[in-house]
């Protein structure tokens, strides 16, 4: 039996998430009305803070399904009990991410054009199909879990979701991997890196939501389950660090990428700070200490670790997306270059309030969908009764 969010908390949460969503929509309307001139984005930094938010949510939407996959595909019962919440969070995060991505378009009113004109060579167009597919598969998977008549289809649906989300995150990584002309991107390492990042970020989101639901309903999570799930988060954080390190080390090895790596890792102003202090220290090492050090075994430590992982993910995405564009394109190798269009110059970018609020609005959408569905569909995670005999079957 799933327990329900306590009524008062529910309405406060709906109001709060509705307000954040509303503010995001106002920001989008302002951007539509005045044009992108009111954002910090320009012809050099064409993707900004909204894309950091959107990509975080889309990547996490895929990763949060890990809990469901471990349950249904790999048959771990503790995770299976959490599969409905995991699927719901995936739909919610994807909806949030796509809302931001869509409302940031120069012509958001032309959504129908995007839905009816597919350029088959475009990875963006593939992603439109992949996103719609994930919505459908996750919804069908939820259906197989909630309707006893659909139970026989649960396993096939779980496999379909599992395969689809791996392809989806590959597609997200390919958006950058196919950009051969930019030093920061154009690497075959990006799709697997995005998949591993999705595991960590999705699980961090899951931890926070699960812990919040338990806290608000006056329940406690079985410490053994907490231990298992937080160790898994630790493993994913380490795997992400490994991929990020490999990406930079391979770049450092190529002479032509020297300048870019020096910019991102050492001399590039805010970017090295965000990378080392934001992503590596606060977003990876500190969470690992909180996860693996025996002194920190409480739920709140896991929640703080998860929040730090999410903070680190934003720092990493900012460096990756904005830093990747800020470093000048190498159009004339071997020459010092100047022009009126920023050639040879580090591009500057100061995010404005509307674009930041738009990104936040996307989180509001995810928050709102989660809050309503958890209550209406009864998707809170189960109140596990600690049972020593079961522990070995996790």
């Amino acid at each position: 039996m799933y327990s329900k969010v306590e009524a008062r908390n529910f309405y406060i949460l709906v109001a709060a998430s509705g307000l954040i969503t509303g503010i995001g929509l106002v920001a989008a309307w302002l951007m539509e009305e005045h044009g992108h001139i009111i954002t910090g984005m320009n012809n050099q930094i064409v993707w900004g803070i909204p894309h950091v938010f959107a990509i975080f949510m889309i990547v996490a939407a895929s990763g949060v399904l890990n809990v469901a996959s471990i349950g249904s595909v790999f048959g771990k019962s503790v995770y299976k009990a959490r599969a409905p919440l995991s699927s719901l969070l995936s739909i919610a995060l994807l909806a949030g991410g796509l809302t931001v991505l869509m409302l940031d378009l120069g012509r958001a009113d032309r959504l129908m054009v995007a839905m009816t004109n597919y350029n088959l060579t475009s990875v963006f167009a593939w992603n439109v199909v992949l996103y719609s597919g994930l919505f459908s598969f996750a919804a069908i998977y939820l259906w197989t879990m909630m309707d006893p008549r659909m139970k026989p289809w649960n396993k096939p649906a779980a496999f379909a979701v599992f395969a689809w989300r791996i392809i989806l995150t590959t597609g997200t990584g390919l958006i950058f991997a196919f950009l051969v002309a930019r030093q920061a991107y154009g690497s075959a390492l990006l799709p697997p890196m995005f998949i591993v990042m999705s595991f960590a970020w999705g699980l961090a989101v899951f931890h926070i939501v699960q812990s919040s639901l338990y806290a608000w309903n006056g329940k406690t999570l079985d410490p053994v389950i907490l231990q298992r799930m937080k160790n898994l988060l630790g493993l994913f954080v380490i795997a992400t660090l490994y991929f990020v390190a490999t990406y930079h080390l391979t770049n450092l090895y190529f002479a032509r990428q020297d300048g870019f790596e020096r910019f991102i890792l050492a001399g590039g102003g805010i970017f090295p700070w965000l990378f080392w202090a934001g992503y590596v220290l606060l977003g990876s090492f500190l969470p690992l200490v909180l996860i693996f050090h025996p002194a920190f075994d409480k739920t709140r430590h896991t929640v703080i670790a998860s929040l730090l992982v999410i903070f680190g993910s934003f720092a990493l995405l900012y460096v990756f997306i904005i830093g990747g564009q800020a470093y000048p394109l190498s159009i004339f190798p071997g020459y010092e270059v100047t022009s009126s269009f920023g050639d040879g110059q580090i591009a500057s970018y100061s995010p404005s309030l509307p674009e930041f609020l738009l990104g936040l609005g996307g989180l509001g959408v995810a928050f709102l969908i989660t809050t309503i569905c958890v209550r209406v569909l009864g998707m809170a995670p189960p109140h596990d009764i600690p049972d020593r005999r079961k522990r070995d079957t996790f």
Partner: protein
Amino acid sequence: MSAENPERRAFLGKASALAAGLAIAPGVLLFGFAHGRPAGEAASGKVRWGMLVDTNQCGNGCNDCVTACNKENGLSGGTKATDSQWIRKVELKNMKGGRNLSLPVMCQHCEHPPCVDVCPTGASFRRADGIVLVDKHRCIGCRYCMMACPYKARSFVHEPLADQKPDVPRGKGTVESCTLCVHRVDRGEQPACVEACAKAGRGAILFGDLNDPESEISKRIRTVASAQIRADLMLNPGIRYEGI
């Protein structure tokens, strides 16, 4: 009444000749622009429009091509990071030898344009005659093409526009770039930058059909050393440079 008026007859004869002349003049004029393409006729794949920029002739500090482009296409001419720049002058200094160069960079009208590959809606497209364009009615403003372009040739319209040129449709929230002055080319004229460069007495930009072995540009490409920018990407741009 029966008496004929020779003067009147002469007048009528001249007036008729003038009227006939006026009637066929546009046709004759159209015939004069022999390279022009009649309205409604599709661009031909037999032609590949291109340019050859002679950097030895291109003057450091000369901006005439940029000014002409802005005027022709109704661009503001502003150089803020949010302003559209379809063509820009780039100053180069060789890091080893110290040699200085100046050249214009615009959309390179690639044979395999990355912007066309990545555009989700097919708004970015390559015409049969090699001109790469953006369909302003289909562009959703995602800016993926700007991320993909190796030449940073594209601009995004960040603000509402006023006083647009009828021949050059533009739109807030869409991406745009050099059209190779397609409206002029279709009339049989040269792009505005080419004309301005010639007028400035430099003649650094040669425009023509790369597919026609007898065209001036093809002959020149056969006789002088020319290069494509980022040739390593194998995009086969239609814009070539001499002296880089």
